[in-house]
C-alpha cells in the first residue's frame, strides 16, 4: 500500500515536470508585478491560492492597481476565463467518480493542468483520482511558489529568463502532437486549430477566444453524426 502511494506520487510528479519551470518563472513575473503595484507577499499568496488562473492574475494586477470597479473585475474575469467553461464541460465524464478529490480537481483546472490531464490517461485506474489530484496540486505549488518568490524579490531576476515562457507553448504543441499520434479521428484537433486560427485573423488577439469557442462547438456539433459513426466503425 505504501509502495503504491509512493508510486502514484512519483508518477504524478514526473507528469507535472513540464509545467514546473514555466509556472515558477511566470509566477515570479506575477509576484514582481504585484509587488511593484504596491501589494506584497500576502496578496500574491492569496491571489495564487484562491484565483489560480495565470493570465487572469496578470490582468488582475492592472485592475487592482488602476482601482477598477467590482463590476469591471467581474466582466473581465468572465471574458478572460470563459475558456474554463469549455475545459469543465469536457471533463464532466472523466471527473465523474473522483470522490473527495473532485472539488479540488475542478478548482485547479488551469490551461496547463488541463493539457496534462485531458487525454484521460492514468498510470493505474484504481488510483487515478489520487494521481490526478497530485498532478493538479504540484502544479499549483509551482505557481504559488513562483508568486511568493517574485514578491520577495520585487525586481527582475539577476539572469535573463527571456524566452522561458515558450515552455508553455511547447507543452501545448507536444500535447497536440501526442494526441495526433495516438490515432483516432483527427477532425476535432483540426477543428480546434483551424477555427481558432480563423477567429484570430478575424477578431484579433484580444477578442478571438470566445468566437473561436463558439465556432468550434458549432463545427463539432455539425459533424457529430459523422464522428460518432466513425467511432463505432473503428471500435
Amino acid at each position: 500500500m505504501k509502495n503504491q502511494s509512493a508510486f502514484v506520487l512519483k508518477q504524478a510528479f514526473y507528469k507535472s515536470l513540464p509545467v514546473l519551470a514555466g509556472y515558477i518563472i511566470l509566477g515570479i513575473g506575477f509576484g514582481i508585478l504585484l509587488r511593484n503595484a504596491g501589494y506584497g507577499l500576502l496578496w500574491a499568496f492569496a491571489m495564487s491560492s484562491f484565483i489560480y488562473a495565470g493570465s487572469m492574475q496578470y490582468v488582475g494586477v492592472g485592475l487592482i492597481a488602476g482601482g477598477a470597479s467590482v463590476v469591471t473585475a467581474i466582466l473581465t474575469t468572465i471574458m478572460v476565463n470563459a475558456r474554463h467553461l469549455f475545459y469543465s464541460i469536457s471533463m464532466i465524464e472523466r471527473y465523474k467518480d473522483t470522490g473527495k478529490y473532485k472539488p479540488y480537481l475542478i478548482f485547479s483546472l488551469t490551461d496547463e493542468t488541463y493539457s496534462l490531464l485531458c487525454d484521460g490517461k492514468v498510470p493505474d485506474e484504481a488510483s487515478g483520482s489520487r494521481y490526478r489530484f497530485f498532478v493538479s496540486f504540484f502544479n499549483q505549488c509551482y505557481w504559488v511558489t513562483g508568486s511568493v518568490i517574485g514578491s520577495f524579490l520585487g525586481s527582475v531576476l539577476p539572469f535573463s529568463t527571456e524566452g522561458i515562457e515558450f515552455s508553455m507553448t511547447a507543452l501545448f504543441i507536444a500535447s497536440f502532437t501526442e494526441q495526433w499520434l495516438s490515432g483516432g479521428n483527427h477532425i476535432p484537433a483540426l477543428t480546434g486549430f483551424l477555427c481558432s486560427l480563423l477567429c484570430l485573423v478575424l477578431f484579433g488577439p484580444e477578442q478571438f477566444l470566445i468566437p473561436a469557442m463558439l465556432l468550434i462547438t458549432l463545427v463539432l456539433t455539425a459533424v457529430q453524426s459523422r464522428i460518432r459513426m466513425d467511432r463505432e466503425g473503428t471500435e
Partner: protein
Amino acid sequence: MNFDVHAAALVLAMAFFTWLLRFLPFLVFRKNTPGYIVYLGKVLPSAIIGMLVVYCLKDVEFSAAPFGLPELIAAVSVVVLQRWKRNSLISILVGTIFYMVLIRTVFCVCSLHERRNPVEHDVNLNVHYTAPEEIWTRIGNVYRSMPYWSGTDAGPEWTGEGIDLWASVEPGGIQIAGTMPDDVWEIWYRELKERLTEALGYEIGEPEDGYDFQYWK
C-alpha cells in the same frame, strides 16, 4: 498600512467568478450527462489543445522581422522531437532551450538594433492640474503599476535599459517626457493611457488629438 478593502473585494470577485466558470458545467450536469455533452467531452480535448496552441502564439508578430521565425522553428522542433521520442518532457525541455538560444543568437542581432535605441518622447495628457487629491492618488497608483517604475518621493520616474522617463503636472495637463526605445514606448504609452482611462473613468489621450479635459468642482 491600512488594509485595502477595495482590492480585497476585487480579488474575491475574480476568485469567485473563476470558480463559477470552472464549477458551473459540473453543477448543471450533476445528475445525468446528456449524450451530446458526453460526445463533446470526447472530442473537445483535442480541439481545445489545438485552440491553446493558437492562443499561445497569438501575440507573435508575423508581419515584421523576425516574422515569427524563432517560434515556428522551435515549434517544428517540438513536433519532430515528440514524433521521434514520444516523451513530452524531452520535447518541451529541448524545444524551450532551443527557442531561448535562437532568440539570443541568430535572431538577436536584427532585433537588438532597433530595440535598444532610445528615442526622445514628450507628450501631454488631458488631466487638468486642478484635479482633486483623490484623482492624483489614483494616477499615482497607475504610475506605480507601470513597468520600469523607479519613482521616489521626488516624483514619478521610470528607468531601465535605454529608458529614462518622468512625469509632471503642467498647465497643459500631465506631461510624460524622457527617453525610451520606440517599440517599448509604443506598448508602454498605450498601456498607460488605457490604465488611466480605466482608473479615472473618462477617455485619456493627448488634448491635440481631441481628448477633452475634465474639470472637477
